[in-house]
């Protein structure tokens, strides 16, 4: 039986003057209904593009993806309308994802209005429900975005995304622009909503502690490719791919007693323009050797744990 969201060999390439950008390159994964998949990676790794492709804000170059058993890779206008009631996206920046000239009510009501399923009174009722659900005080109904702080704005964005009762929500860095005390409020809200409505999340972030907290499974992306995927806790307990390890050790820890020696990576992320075959991380990898120039594929290193490193098996047994 296919999983709720099933992505197979998805590619998204952009043609630019400097060459073809392989923003998402041959990515496959699946998410079970009601589950959360975290997508982690640094800027330019293609995680946001992946999210945008999955909600049809961008067209894929090749590959297929299925939502609830249906192939939703290519959609007609009418199908797209229905698809968008199923799949929604929450953006990173609550400052730019709200129309500054719309009141809170306008923003939340717009999807209801566009769905043509509600009359005026039902829309007002549903708006009140959604505001309540997202924890927005009723007195803010006629407030404009600039009158709200980041946390409240993000609540409005969440209420808008949930207006059509979607089953699948892409959260693209929904808490990165928020302060920690507010970030925790929004994370709790997202988790509560998931429980209540059995939502399926794809949670895109660069923040490893956030992704561990909210995800069931985690995918690590590097330059458009999936380099490691496993259950959340295992990623932190037994990372296999050298990039994952470097990423984990790079995060400054607030625990002052557990100072770890960190492996500082050389070099910087290059842009994924016309990449050469072979491991894309090899140029920065402390363990790179000749074998890394060959093609890479995801290998099973443990049950439910795959990694794209030719040395994966050796890494697994090696001490960390």
């Amino acid at each position, binding site marked *: 039986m296919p999983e709720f969201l099933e992505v197979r060999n998805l590619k998204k390439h952009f043609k630019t003057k400097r060459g073809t950008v392989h923003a998402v390159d041959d990515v496959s994964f699946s998410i079970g209904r009601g589950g959360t998949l975290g997508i982690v990676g*640094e800027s330019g790794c293609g995680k946001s593009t992946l999210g945008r492709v999955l909600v049809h804000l961008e067209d894929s170059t090749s590959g297929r993806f299925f939502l609830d058993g249906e192939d939703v890779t290519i959609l007609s206008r009418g199908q797209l309308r229905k698809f968008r009631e199923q799949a929604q996206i929450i953006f990173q920046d609550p400052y730019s994802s709200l129309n500054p000239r719309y009141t809170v009510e306008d923003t939340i009501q717009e999807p209801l209005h566009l769905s043509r399923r509600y009359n005026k009174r039902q829309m007002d009722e549903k708006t009140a429900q959604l505001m309540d659900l997202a924890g927005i005080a009723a007195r803010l109904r006629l407030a404009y975005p600039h009158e709200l702080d980041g946390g409240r704005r993000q609540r409005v964005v969440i209420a808008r995304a949930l207006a059509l009762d979607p089953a699948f929500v892409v959260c693209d860095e929904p808490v990165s622009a928020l*302060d920690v005390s507010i970030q*925790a409020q929004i994370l709790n809200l997202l988790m509560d909503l998931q429980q209540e409505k059995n939502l399926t999340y794809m949670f895109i972030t660069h923040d490893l502690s956030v992704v561990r907290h909210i995800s069931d499974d985690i995918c690590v992306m590097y330059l458009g490719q999936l380099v490691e995927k496993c259950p959340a806790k295992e990623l932190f307990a037994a990372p296999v791919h050298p990039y994952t390890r470097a990423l984990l*050790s*790079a*995060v400054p820890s607030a625990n002052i007693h557990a100072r770890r020696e960190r492996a*500082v990576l050389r070099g910087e992320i290059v842009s994924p323009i016309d990449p050469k075959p072979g491991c894309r991380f090899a140029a920065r990898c402390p363990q790179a050797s000749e074998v890394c120039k060959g093609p890479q594929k995801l290998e099973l290193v443990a049950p439910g744990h795959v990694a794209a490193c030719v040395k994966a098996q050796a890494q697994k047994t090696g001490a960390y």
Partner: protein
Amino acid sequence: MSQDTFLSVRGLTVEYVTKYETVQAVNGVCLDLSKGQTLGLVGETGAGKTTIARAVTRILQSPPAAVRGGEIFLDGVDLLKLPEREMCHMRGNRISMIFQDPMTALNPVMCVGNQIAEVIRKHDHVSAAAARQQAEMSLELVGIPAQRYGEYPHQFSGGMKQRVVIAAALACGPDLLLADEPTTALDVTIQAQMLDMMHRLHDLKETSTVIITHDMGVVAEMCDYVAVIYAGEIVEYGALEDVFDHAAHPYTVGLFAAIPSMWEDVARLTPIPGQPPDPTALPVGCKFSPRCAYMDGECGARPVEMKTVGPGHTCRCLR
């Protein structure tokens, strides 16, 4: 004020005054920093961290900003009383500031080497050749090969640009470095490189540093002392270990509890309820009291003074 205090801020108060409202950005902040030490200013957006740093370097945009009171001593000199000419000399020679966004801190039509050399010439009055040599040295110091002297900012990645910014800030060997969210715009692996580099430079030059950040991890890695800021006030101040291990103020405690852990399982995060107060209408008493679980009648009544809770560890709370 102890003998070796290098930077001392006393009762700094800054407001932003517009036609319609007055934002109380910084309300009587006192800070002390000894030579060679690193102080972390931690707080949320709008807490007044950046305003403090800008007040120290006197680059507040005025109006709307207005320094309402306080003194800032650098090595015994009150910066707020210096004439602008001398202050200009101070900036660059003794004080440097690194801004959050490396993308906008560099001039896009000037090669990076010359931007650093310009700083050096302006403050050290040396020949062009000598300035160039010094600029090349500063680039090498931050890990950029001197061959890239003639390249332009757009040829550098974000991390490299921030290195250039740091090189420029350190070029004249300042005694005090103010770094405003120096790594926030960077990816974690690049941030790790940057923190590593700043550690090395700090060991090398012993510059007194103030790091402004909202990231407790960065504070833990970089700082000797921590000042937690809330609504323009320091609510807790102390050595890194004291604040991190024995956080005394409910806000500090709440901040730590709100961060999801990378190593432990937490079923549910404990956020601080509510929102930061409106800076145009701050509460009279404890600014945090409306969000505080231990709030009682006393808290909101009158301003709360800093109280000593341990050696060198102070906290603005009645409890």
